[in-house]
């Protein structure tokens, strides 16, 4: 059972948020000139860069007849975590993350439009403070939009946890590093909120069946909130009407 | 990193017993003083500006019989073997490359260095030397003549007593010529170690060691290696480590240029002797073959006579 100290007696969390409150999300599309699409996203202290190349011709071995190959690489900067990482990528965790990213994003991309092609999505975590996967999915979605790749819907990811307050279960939205480290359950959902479908769901630790629905619906609510934020960012970016890519370099 | 399982790998924090000897604890000043005697002569009897000569006896081609071309260079205690293999298609390559490539690998023998045992797996220094060697050789080889192919150059340093990069470049130049790889010019290389206002041409390991230690004062120190195509007056690689001012770099460059030029006739001589030797050898072989054939013919005749008589 997760410790009761995740929520104070006033019902506030360790970092002062309310249980259903997201961390501050700031984002920007088109940060780089060379990739076809790029985005930067900050979710609290978690900072992520995403770049998209493609669609381009797929290598012969990977090529699919009926859809596009989505190639993802998740890598973490060596200085992104509290303790220095020795390898930015190639370890088990980042390979698993790459696979999960691919799953969530393939669900969003209209893959049937580009047979025998490939889209490369590279995600670089600059600073990890919990929820690096969620931030990666959100940033990758923005980068895909910046690259002009047709999507079914926004792919948004959000995590949720469980805490107890006065004997009542209270799901927590958008889990930070401290709450993750406290050892509670973390449910991560990547979904297409506007269609109501789920692309990926993953849970760590133990959660009673009775509370699953509550936590899941809180995470889904979080995805919906994130979609609103991303949508606003995209609209603002397009209203500017002038991205770095439009500046012609000889 | 592949570990060498055939060897008992000591605990990583093991230290050489030499650490506890008196030599090890010498201060910088003591080490510096030891390099020169009172007459300004170096420990091995050379003057400051005198390079170790690469005489005929200590440098030869035709060292490794399996290789297409090979060379052995010995500068007193620095001993280097180089082998060059036939061009082969570049492995794991997707695109066609217009220019042929040179693959270089420098390896220290485990027992080569006086201060520590060399690890089995390639370390950073070996990788850096390989890159420097490749850069020195690339401009000398007519790479457009073998597109999409690569020539492998392997250097094995048997004993390291300073200036191993320049010895490696000289050996590689000889071996490439021995392998009949088309080249624009003979490539030669030389090193200089700088300690304060003194320049040690073709330094030994002890001199290099002192030159790489940073002194307390703000004086110049460092090691420069330069490789040249003397006939074309082109510098193919220049490597500097340490800290020195412009004047020092310029004087060192002039000295190195001269040293590289003096090496050329020696290398030419070795190559010519090698050609003459191999020509003579072939002639001798042919003569022997002729002799043998004649002997056989005589035998045949004898047998035939015997048969006919029988």
């Amino acid at each position, binding site marked *: 059972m997760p410790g009761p100290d995740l929520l104070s007696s006033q019902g506030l969390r360790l970092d002062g948020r309310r249980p259903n409150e997201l961390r501050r999300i700031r984002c920007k599309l088109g940060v780089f000139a060379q990739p076809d699409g790029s985005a930067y996203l900050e979710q609290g202290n978690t900072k992520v860069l995403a770049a998209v190349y493609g669609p381009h011709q797929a290598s012969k071995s990977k090529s699919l007849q009926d859809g596009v190959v989505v190639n993802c690489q998740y890598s973490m900067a060596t200085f992104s975590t509290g303790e220095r990482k020795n390898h930015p990528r190639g370890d088990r965790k980042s390979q698993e993350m790459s696979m999960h990213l691919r799953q969530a994003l393939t669900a969003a991309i209209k893959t049937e439009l580009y047979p025998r092609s490939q889209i490369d999505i590279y995600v670089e975590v600059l600073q990890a403070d919990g929820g690096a996967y969620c931030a990666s999915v959100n940033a990758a979605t923005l980068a895909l939009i910046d690259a002009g790749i047709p999507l079914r819907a926004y792919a948004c990811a959000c995590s949720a946890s469980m805490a107890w307050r006065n004997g009542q279960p209270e799901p927590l939205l958008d889990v930070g590093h401290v709450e993750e480290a406290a050892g509670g359950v973390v449910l991560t959902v990547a979904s297409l909120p506007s269609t109501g479908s789920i692309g990926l769901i993953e849970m760590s630790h133990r959660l009673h069946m009775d509370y699953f629905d509550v936590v899941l619906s809180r995470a889904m609510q979080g995805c919906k909130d994130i979609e609103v934020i991303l949508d606003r960012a995209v609209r603002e970016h397009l209203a500017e009407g002038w991205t770095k890519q439009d500046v012609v370099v000889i | 990193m592949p570990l060498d399982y055939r060897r008992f790998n000591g605990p990583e924090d093991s230290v050489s017993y030499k650490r506890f000897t008196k030599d090890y604890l010498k201060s910088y000043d003591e080490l510096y003083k030891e390099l020169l005697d009172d007459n300004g002569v170096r420990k091995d009897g050379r003057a400051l500006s005198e390079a170790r000569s690469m005489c005929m006896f200590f440098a030869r081609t035709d060292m490794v019989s399996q290789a297409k071309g090979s060379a052995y260079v010995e500068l007193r205690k620095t001993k280097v073997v180089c082998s060059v293999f036939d061009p082969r298609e570049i492995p794991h390559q997707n695109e066609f490359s217009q220019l042929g490539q040179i693959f270089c690998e420098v390896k220290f023998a485990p027992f080569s260095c006086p201060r520590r045992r060399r690890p089995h797996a390639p370390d950073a220094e070996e990788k850096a030397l390989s890159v420097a060697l490749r850069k020195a050789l690339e401009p000398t080889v007519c790479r457009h003549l073998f597109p999409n192919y690569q020539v492998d150059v392997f250097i094995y340093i048997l004993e390291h007593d300073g200036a191993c990069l320049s010895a490696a470049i000289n050996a590689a130049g000889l071996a490439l010529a021995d392998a009949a790889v088309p080249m624009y010019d003979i490539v030669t290389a030389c090193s200089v170690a700088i300690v304060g206002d003194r320049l040690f041409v073709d330094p030994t390991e002890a001199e290099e060691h002192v030159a790489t230690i940073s002194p307390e004062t703000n004086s110049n120190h460092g090691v420069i290696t330069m490789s040249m195509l003397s006939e074309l007056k082109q510098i193919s690689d*220049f490597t500097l480590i340490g*800290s020195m001012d412009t004047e020092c770099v310029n004087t060192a460059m002039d000295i190195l240029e001269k040293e590289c030029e003096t090496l050329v006739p020696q290398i030419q001589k070795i190559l010519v002797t090698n050609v003459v030797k191999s020509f003579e050898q072939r002639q001798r072989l042919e003569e022997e073959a002729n002799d043998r054939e004649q002997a056989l013919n005589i035998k045949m005749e004898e047998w035939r006579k015997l048969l006919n008589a029988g």
Partner: protein
Amino acid sequence: MAGLLLSPTEKVFIVHGVQEDYRSDGRSNIDYRPMELETDVVSHASGSARLRLANTDILVGVKTEIDVPSPENPDLGKIEFFVDCSANATPEFEGRGGEQLAIGISNLMQRAYHSSQAFNLKQLCIFESKQCWKLYVDILILECGGNLCDAVSLAVKAALFNTRIPFVKAALMDGGNVDLQLSDDPYDSKLLDVGSAPLQVTLCKIGDKCVVDPSAEEESCSVISVIVGITGNSSCFSEDNSSPDTGGKFTTIDMNGPGSVAPKTLKDAINQGRVAAKLLDKSLGEALLRERQESVKLKKYSYGFLK
């Protein structure tokens, strides 16, 4: 570089431009492109900097750890450079694709910082022959738009300038163990003396002339470039201007590319690089000092990648 294809005519255009000292983006041969520099961008690192030189984007984080000094140099700390070429820069770097380039740059940095006249490792000593600081300088290449070496060396110097090392009290206990006491106050820390840290200048030989700060297009027109590392002037990096004018010594010279140069050209290039490095060092010092003063007065607004 990623998908950089230039036709022979475009190359001729660039080469002719360099000959006339008027490059395709309007610069002369000794001009740098505009740069953006911000320090203290990564909160998990002791010091960090992000440098954007036109399209080249570098993020450097410095992490500090406590280590045992090497037996050869008991009174010196350690510094290690690690370069990571992010696949964000080009798909060629995916997996282990960028490793060759990364090793090349980190070797170059290691060599440039080798001499104590470039960076004094004594300031990282905690307790002689027992404990020292080890600096991990992690360089992340996010986008390549030419001239990586210069950008990396600038960003590294800025990140080291920004690095804070906590004060440590060390005492020798019984049995030869060292007892370390760290203060709980994160502001109880010292800054590093990095004024003399070297900057690298790449001189790209195009035609008969050498240009400074080549763009990716210009790099593809050249077969050889000379990289010179030159120590900085510490008086540019401290607020009192009394300290003497130092620096300007070569800590590394290297050649990059398959070509070769004539001795005269190399000498000229080295001198040209020295002049360029001095100017670069001066403006870097000014920018860093200005930023430090601003951050003392008010809490700095962090731009990061949002600008």
